[in-house]
């Protein structure tokens, strides 16, 4: 493995790691000493700087991560808010509505109301921090209870949960 290859592997690792990757982890995978790994990462970042890349490798508490340089922030903020990631799927919206009105509630209870499994919908709500785990139900298996977050209130322009529109009697209206 030559230096260019080693740097490319490090680039792939730092880019793809779900959270900042430690020097130790890099060294282990590359099969080199931590000192060598640190040196290679430094070189990689120097290469980025030399070619005036918008990206840079930064060292945060736990390890390394690739991020954009501050001067590009304004452009990134200009990326439309209408992109798909902001849109919730119909399934996620259903779950969110159920959680908002029935909190705290378990996944199984949500599934029962919806008649289908809600795992991925709940997962996406958790990822967006619109809901959070708020405790455990005192029942067999102590299932997780979900509730809405402050971010949920913010996203929907609500002062607090009392601000939610009253629930219509027919359950259908909740879903539409």
């Amino acid at each position, binding site marked *: 493995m030559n230096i260019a290859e080693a740097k490319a592997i490090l680039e792939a690792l730092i880019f*793809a790691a*779900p959270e900042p990757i430690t020097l130790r982890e890099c060294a282990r995978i590359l099969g080199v000493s931590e000192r060598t790994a640190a040196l290679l990462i430094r070189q990689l970042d120097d290469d980025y700087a030399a070619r005036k890349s918008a990206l840079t490798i930064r060292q945060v508490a736990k390890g390394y991560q690739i991020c954009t340089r501050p001067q590009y922030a304004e452009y990134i903020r200009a990326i439309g808010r209408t992109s798909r990631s902001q849109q919730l799927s119909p399934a996620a919206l259903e779950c969110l509505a159920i959680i908002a009105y029935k909190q705290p509630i378990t996944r199984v209870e949500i599934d029962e109301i919806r008649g289908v499994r809600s795992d991925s919908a709940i*997962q996406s709500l958790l990822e967006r921090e619109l809901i959070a785990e708020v405790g455990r139900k005192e029942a067999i298996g102590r299932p997780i209870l979900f509730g809405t977050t402050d971010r949920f209130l913010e996203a929907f322009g609500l002062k607090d949960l009392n601000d939610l529109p009253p629930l219509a009697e027919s359950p259908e209206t909740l879903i539409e």
Partner: protein
Amino acid sequence: MQSGILQVDDDQNRFTIELPVFSGPLDLLLHLVQKEQVSIWDVSLAKVTEEYLRFLDTMQELNLEVTCEFLVLAATLVQIKARSLLPKPPAVADETEDETEESLLLRLVEYKKFKTAAEQFARRAEQENEVFTKVYLDVNLLAQEDQPATTGEINVSIWELLEIVQKLLATYRPEPEAKPEPQIPREFVSLPETIFRLQQRFQGGYRCGFRDLLLEARSRAELIATFLACLELIKLGFVSLVRSETSTIELVSEG
């Protein structure tokens, strides 16, 4: 149907094995037609009909879920076969709403198109798995399903296994007796015990032919238990399937 669910009511405990088997009756029919190695339009429907029925028997014997769609197609096949045996009526009396051989084969051709596309999709998804993007909200990361080892790289389909076991089962059945109810192994062959026994044997590295292993069974019940135990061990990743140079299917465990 997405996966066949094998449920064996063991006398002590309930045992469930889930594995992908077939995706529908057309999938099964297509498999049988393709085995004939002739153009679909030249296939002997009579022969395929028999095989189709035999497959349903085996599936029932293994307690694989046989949905009504399988039975509907079976009825259609039998009907087509019966019609072909009757002397042709002089007049064209084909205004019946029954499915004709031609229309069935046309459906099969149409189905095959999408099955091929589905296989392409699967390969594409595999290629995609070599490519990583930055992690934002990678929901999928958390929802990994463990996949049965049978779908792994060696390309031995569940069909092949089923065919092997089917052929062996046939040898234990001298004449196709008219049995309305599929026989469930009731001879006290415990599946968990069989799994345990095989696990012991494969411990520390072992290799043997899949068919040979099944041949050791002394009864139909034991044969079925061995087959199911193999599937379970494969699914658990305890043993894997390989194809030997002589193209026989073997079970292998790591040392």
